[in-house]
């Protein structure tokens, strides 16, 4: 896509993510050719859609598409994917002589589909399996963000599955791409929170002046922008080399900075931002869930430190 095409594509996606959510957004994305774009140019497809989805608080099965694409599985309409359990990034399945055990999550897209793709840890390495939905227990959860539409997916001693090609699933790549997508979504949601807080700060009058004229407010919002741009910088860098390490750092920082952003923006929005009359809470809820998918900022960061200590070396540097 050249820059003009990309801009038009982005505009269409902006409309779609603002007008639709869930199945309706899936249909709109299909119509706009987003799944095709993902197959041809994953960086462009992911980095345009997910920030918009984050900013509009909308949901879709785009994350499923990203995972399936990274596994080399092109998603036929009747197949969803099981994501790792909350806070985890290990494959959601375990394969042994007892059959397949499943403990994971699914987006709303999984319901009503005939098959689910489950990546399972096996002796020979991660393996992608097609599992009939009927052999899985799929239980809808509300949690902190009912709009996100997550379900808990479990299954015990399942033997009715089909192995999918390629025989060894590139789970590390699936985790990396999912983390990049989620980091973009977190950054999009963070930018929206900052926009909401900024609007409020310039309009809200106290002591006869807009509260945006007070340094305490200005510095909070400035720190918020610094926090967001840190995550954005890591994302830009991660797309240059797309390694598990760079994707993990981008996701961890995007998650941590979304928390920072929520805290600062909540404080600036004060009373109104604590009510459901104002949309801030939607983003506070959403970013908490997004942080938990494919590893929280805290757990991913700790794992990075442990690995650095183990190898006594810093992660590779992106050259100038």
């Amino acid at each position, binding site marked *: 896509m050249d820059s003009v095409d990309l801009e038009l594509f982005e505009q269409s996606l902006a409309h779609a993510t603002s007008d639709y959510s869930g199945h309706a957004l899936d249909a709109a994305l299909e119509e706009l050719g987003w799944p095709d774009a993902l197959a041809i140019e994953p960086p462009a497809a992911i980095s345009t859609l997910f920030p918009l989805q984050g900013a509009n608080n909308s949901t879709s099965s785009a994350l499923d598409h990203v995972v399936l694409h990274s596994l080399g599985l092109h998603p036929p309409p009747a197949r969803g994917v099981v994501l790792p359990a909350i806070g985890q990034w290990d494959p959601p399945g375990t394969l042994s002589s007892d059959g397949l055990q499943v403990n994971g999550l699914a987006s709303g897209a999984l319901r009503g589909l005939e098959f689910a793709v489950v990546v399972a840890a096996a002796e020979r390495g991660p393996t992608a399996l097609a599992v009939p939905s009927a052999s899985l227990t799929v239980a809808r959860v509300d949690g902190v963000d009912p709009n996100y539409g997550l379900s808990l997916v479990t299954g015990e001693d399942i033997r009715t599955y089909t192995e999918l090609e390629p025989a060894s699933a590139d789970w590390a790549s699936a985790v990396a791409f999912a983390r990049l997508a989620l980091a973009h979504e977190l950054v999009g949601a963070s930018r929206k929170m900052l926009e909401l807080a900024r609007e409020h700060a310039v309009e809200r009058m106290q002591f006869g002046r807009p509260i945006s*004229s007070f340094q305490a*407010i200005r510095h909070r919002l400035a720190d918020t922008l610094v926090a967001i741009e840190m995550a954005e*910088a890591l994302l830009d860098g991660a797309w240059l080399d797309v390694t598990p390490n760079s994707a993990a750092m981008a996701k961890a920082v995007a998650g941590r900075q979304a928390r920072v952003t929520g805290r600062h923006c909540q404080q600036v929005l004060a009373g109104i931002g604590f009510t459901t009359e104002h949309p801030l809470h939607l983003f506070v809820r959403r970013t908490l869930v997004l942080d938990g998918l494919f590893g929280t900022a805290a757990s991913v960061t700790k794992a990075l*430190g442990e690995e650095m200590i183990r190898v006594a070396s810093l992660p590779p540097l992106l050259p100038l």
Partner: protein
Amino acid sequence: MTGSGGSATDVDDFRSSVESWLDDTQHMLAPEYPGSGTLDQQMAQLAKVKRSAYDAGWMRMGWPERVGGLGGSTLMRAYLGEALTTRGLVEPGLYSMTEVLAPTMIEYAAPQLAATVVPALLRGDETWCQGFSEPGTGSNLASLSCRAERTEDGWRVTGQKIWTSLAQYAQRCVLLTRTGTMESAHRGITTLFVDMDSPGVAVRPIETMHGVDEFSEVFFDNVEVPFARTLGEVDGGWAVAMDLLPYERSTSLWHRAAFLHRRLQDLLETAPPGALEPAKLGEVTQLLYAFRARSRATQHRMANGERLGPETSLDKVMLATAEQAIFDLAADTLTSEVTIGDDPTSERWRTEFLYARAATIYGGSVEIQRNIIARRLLNLGSDR
């Protein structure tokens, strides 16, 4: 500025050529002192390395030909400083003064003057300093009062500067002076290029808490400066200063990140088993890598000829945050070295920890950076 982006191949060629030159000359260029050495030793080391790199041509790459450079992408300058810093051959803060002051001279000095003096700076034959802050003028730069009066053929300067890095070593000073009324604020400032051996210039180093006395007070008592040493327009010094400040937040910070990367690696290698807390280590690494990704983009924008502006305040806040976090972690990890160690290695960690306390103060405090971010990037309007 040539503003040439340069092809990736040119920069890659430069990178491998510089690395092999450094491999060959490392034994001659390496410092002969233990730890971080004294400031005198660091300055002598800097001059030695700059001269070798200039004579070999590397130090001239990325600078315009009219000031003794060999042209090409500014990325080569960023890379050279990174390589010299990573190998521990130069102290990045001292080295990067060139990156702050040379672009200003190239843009604002009369061509003849720039052609004469810039090569001496690049080659390490001269040290320059930057006379901006005053005792009564810290964050509020536009309130400066060091006075320059017009004479028949130039200026007569009287006043005082403070926090002038390396003034005691400098042959020249890029000096902000008050040429309008005090009320004229930023409209009545003129930038001059002053010889530090002029009669009436006195320098008094300031004893700092980290033990490296790199800052000085500089006193000007009726110092005569030729008119040809005016940089930019008379009463147009604010523009010169505003163009200079983003340079403090671009290549200089890239070089500083190379230093921080090396020291974090050193920390990883020297930490006693179990002393490093994984979560904290992971977090400071992310801060450093986020800054580096940000600064990398800034280097590329500069190489493509973009004018740097208020967005570099984000770079500055990120770097200061990363630097303090890294040395806080060092202090938590190497407790005995930092608190009671008297050997050169311990002293170095301690010095660097203490110097990191200033990272949020010098070069425009983070409060000033936040003010810039709030007004210019977030468009929050007036703060009154």
